[in-house]
């Protein structure tokens, strides 16, 4: 599963690096001077207390926010300003903290929509829905069905996603992101608001995606148990500043992290 265009990055090499990135909204410094990297094939967690700038960081990575300072290098290409659809072309997909599915469409159509970038038959064939357009439709339906099987959501294919329970919506959203065959998958709190069982299911899917498709994953999560179990490396933000970076064990012992989460005695 490789996005077109980008140069091949071998497993273990740096896929994305963020260098000295700062972002502020007026007087509010959302992210200040943060640097870290994401290596190909790993699961990278971004954690931190509320308001630490985690979601802002994801928004910067996929081009939704433009940082005032700093550079971002993805697959060897450096850019400071990028539009979201360029990020999508480059192979960055994401899910959202509050589910951002297309509510009026069925689960199948949502995931098919994820393949928009891979489809290119023009308006003429689309109007006839015949020949090349239909062949393309069927070809992509095959790929989408693989994802549906992978996520075990066969029975809700034809259900409008607005009617699905929250846990399944999260799963469909993951499916939609997977349909893009991303190089880098950004998951913004994939397990927020789930019960234990749903969290375990979702964790398994995240590991399977990483394992099966070899997708590099960056995830934001508040459940420390999940983060420590899933991730290869963790970066910790607090008030927009990076306070720790390393393996889960290193981070767990870091004094700054403990202080940020539990507070410091004054």
């Amino acid at each position: 599963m490789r996005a077109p265009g980008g140069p091949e990055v071998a497993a273990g090499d740096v896929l994305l690096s963020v260098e000295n990135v700062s972002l502020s909204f007026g007087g509010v410094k959302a992210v200040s001077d943060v640097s870290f990297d994401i290596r190909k094939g790993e699961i990278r967690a971004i954690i931190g207390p509320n308001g630490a700038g985690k979601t802002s960081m994801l928004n910067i990575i996929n081009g939704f926010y433009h940082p005032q300072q700093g550079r971002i290098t993805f697959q060897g290409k450096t850019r400071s300003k990028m539009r979201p659809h360029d990020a999508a072309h480059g192979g960055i997909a994401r899910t959202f903290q509050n589910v951002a599915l297309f509510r009026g469409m069925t689960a199948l159509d949502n995931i098919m929509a994820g393949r928009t970038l891979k489809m290119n038959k023009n308006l003429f064939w689309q109007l006839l829905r015949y020949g090349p357009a239909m062949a393309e439709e069927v070809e992509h339906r095959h790929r989408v069905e693989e994802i549906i099987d992978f996520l075990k959501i066969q029975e809700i294919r034809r259900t409008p996603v607005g009617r699905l329970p929250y846990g399944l919506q999260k799963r469909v959203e993951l499916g939609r992101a997977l349909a893009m065959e991303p190089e880098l998958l950004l998951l913004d709190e994939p397990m927020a608001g789930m019960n234990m069982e749903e969290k375990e299911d979702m964790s398994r899917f995240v590991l399977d995606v990483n394992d099966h498709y070899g997708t590099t994953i960056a995830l934001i999560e508040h459940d420390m148990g999940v983060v420590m179990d899933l991730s290869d490396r963790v970066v910790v933000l607090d008030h927009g500043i990076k306070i720790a970076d390393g393996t889960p064990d290193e981070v767990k012992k870091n004094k700054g992290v403990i202080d940020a989460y539990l507070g410091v005695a004054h």
Partner: protein
Amino acid sequence: MFYREAGQFKTSYASDQAVFPILQDRIGVFIILAIAFVVIPLTGNDFIINAVMIPFLVFSLAAIGLNLLTGYTGQLSLGTGAFMGVGAYACYKLTTIYPGVNIIIWVIASGFFAAAVGAVFGLPSLRIKGFYLAIATLAAQFFLEWCFIRIPWLYNYNVSAAIEVPQRELFGIIVTGPRASAETRYYIVLSIVVVMTWMASNLMHGRIGRMWMAVRDMDIAAELMGIRLLPTKLLAFAISSFYCGVSGALMVFLWYGGAESAVFNINQSFTILFMIIIGGLGSLLGSFLGAALIYILPIILRFVPPQLGIPLHAATIEHITFMTIGALIVFFLIAEPAGLARLWQIGKQKLRVWPFPY
């Protein structure tokens, strides 16, 4: 029980992705087409064809056009009437400049003029949404209406400031102008509407339809998935206006036989908007149902009191009709805010499990 898909197995994704995967639906569509193409022309009188069916089809096409934009792409527009006008005036200019060319070609070609104008007025949609976009499209409505009145070139400097449809023939049959038969005009309108509805349905079931609905439902997620908002919205404006333009050309050339700018005023825009709201946003079937409710129902209501032998003054009947329609609209919106198309969906679901409740 009547509407069971049990036993209808799909063995390929192509058949599963079909527009009408269920056999009963295909039979239903076939019956409707048979009635439209055979039964109505054979049994209907001049009144049914000329004053009921042709306008209904013309309005349906315009409603489909607006539904593509508002219902599927989520861009509210109040410029429908003006875009219909662009189609009508473009068709008039084209056929008077090049009288030798087949009129059907000009009717379709006029859609492209409307599409271009629509795309230009769709430009603000990148920055503004919802009611504010509606106001921006209102600018299109007023500006274009002004053009229809103030630019005499558009109506060939007629003293009446109106466009008079000239007589045009197709394979020796008169299709436009006062001498064209109702049946001929009906067949042409029907064919164009059927083909364009089929194409709209194809479009909505494919990549472009999904892009539009993605933009409607969650534009941020759509953008992060690689859908570029401006080209997608402009395409929606263009195709929507194309449908409206063709509808406008059909309205003047095959129904009215002549028109002045007032036909394409803001009321027309609102009428079409009401049709899709009542019929169902984001539903092609809803476009037809909405057009039927708003256009055909008043005609039927007008005939009810005389048929029952109630002696009422014509003006009184008119008033009662207005009140009844108003009440019905309120009733339908309360019963099903998602429109008549949704009621039909619910009905299908009931038929499916009948005689059991679920």
